[in-house]
């Protein structure tokens, strides 16, 4: 299996057995930040979001990860938008042939209808009146989570930091907020109701039960049972309700994984103990998965796109840290192993079976 590991210094393709040591099969975009990379399972095409510290952001694509990569046309704002893309946070396959979605900073959604070769701004979300009040989180004003609805291209949900959850039932033509129940504890109590500044950190849909969504918030872990309209906090039992990475089991809508971090002022693993937490009952309870993970002196930070599953049942799980280590589990988190180390700070991890 291949693992696409985006880092502060390029894209690394790691290769090896599930959950075992992995070799570096290739490195591309040396010196640039690879924000995110995926392999579209439908076409086999690889797509990578790359940001040069000098020459700005762009998306590349290829059919051979170790070969040459072509630059996509966009994502880029039309001239009349008066904005410029700072970076592309996420690329997600859509529900129609050759359709992909990309989320960028400043928060906007782009759509490709040719497998990622060219991109166009979704004007519906860009033009929502509330956008004038959107404000950035620590990572900027970014659209980082895109949840399509299996089999229904009309229904889509996106997460924005720090502008909440937005839902569309008409393929992105119109949008509405989906934020009932979310409590922004970082705001004064009298400013929380109807707050715009909702700092969603990560959001995923359970593919076998699309009404079910899980969200890591900036202080809170939430679940929605009604496709993102309302949310309930399920963080009780976790050592911290702060964090970024999240995985939902593709075969079990009751099962999700998070990696808690100490709150916003620290953002490292609590007590220097690297632990993945799993719920098998929709967040009613959580248990720590620790076997094979360092439990002392391990002050890691795991970024929002740096945790992934391989689609298996049980899922193979992989995450990378800002300290350049990548851990993997072939058995749904029961046993972990260090699969790669000494990499640059890891920004994203995705499996490419």
């Amino acid at each position, binding site marked *: 299996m291949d693992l696409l590991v985006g880092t*502060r210094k390029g894209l690394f393709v790691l290769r090896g057995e599930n959950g075992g040591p992995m070799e570096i099969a290739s490195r591309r975009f040396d*010196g640039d930040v690879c924000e995110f990379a995926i392999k579209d399972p439908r076409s086999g095409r690889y797509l990578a979001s790359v940001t040069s510290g000098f020459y700005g952001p762009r998306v590349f694509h290829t059919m051979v990860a170790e070969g040459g990569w072509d630059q996509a046309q966009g994502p880029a704002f039309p001239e009349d938008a008066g904005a410029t893309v700072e970076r592309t946070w996420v690329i997600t396959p859509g529900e129609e042939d050759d359709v992909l979605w990309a989320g960028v900073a400043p928060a906007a959604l782009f759509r490709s209808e040719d497998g990622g070769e060219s991109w166009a701004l979704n004007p519906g979300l860009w033009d929502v009146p509330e956008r004038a009040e959107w404000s950035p*989180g620590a*990572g900027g004003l970014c659209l980082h989570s895109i949840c399509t609805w299996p089999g229904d291209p009309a229904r889509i949900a996106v997460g924005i930091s720090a502008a909440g959850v937005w839902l569309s039932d008409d393929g992105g033509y119109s949008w509405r907020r989906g934020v009932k129940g979310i409590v922004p504890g970082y705001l004064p109590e009298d400013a929380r109701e109807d707050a715009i500044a909702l700092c969603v950190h990560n959001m995923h849909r359970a593919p076998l039960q699309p009404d079910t969504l899980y969200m890591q918030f900036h202080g809170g872990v939430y679940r929605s049972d009604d496709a993102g309209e309302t949310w309930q906090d399920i963080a009780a039992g976790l050592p911290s309700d702060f964090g970024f990475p999240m995985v939902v089991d593709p075969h079990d809508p009751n099962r999700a994984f998070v990696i808690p971090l100490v709150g916003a002022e620290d953002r490292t693993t609590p007590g220097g103990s690297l632990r993945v937490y799993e719920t098998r009952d929709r967040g009613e309870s959580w248990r720590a998965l620790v076997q094979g993970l360092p439990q002392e002196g391990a002050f890691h930070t795991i970024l929002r796109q740096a945790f992934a599953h391989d689609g298996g049942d049980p899922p193979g799980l992989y995450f990378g840290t800002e300290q350049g280590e990548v851990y993997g589990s072939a058995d749904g988190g029961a046993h972990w192993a260090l699969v790669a180390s000494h990499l640059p700070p890891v920004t994203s991890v995705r499996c490419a079976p």
Partner: protein
Amino acid sequence: MAVVSLPSQLRDRAGSGPEVPIDGSTVGQILATLEHNYPGIAGWILDETGTIRRHVNVFLNGERVPAETAVSADDRIQVLPAISGGASVRTPGSLGSRYRG
């Protein structure tokens, strides 16, 4: 016709020689034409608004200039990566480094 000199990374992407003659009356117009003529570097020097990217410096006859600067036929334009670029960037209005999330 003014001559544009590119750094090696952009030359490699453009597939151009070290110096490219381009017609135009301002620096911005010449750079836009350059990116149009060499699609491999489209968007690498100018962003979507036509502004020179923050961490790219453009010199006209040895003096750093903005995009609207007028250009004469014998002028020489140099595009260089800025010493301010290449590292993590703080986002305006944000609370910390762009990589904290």
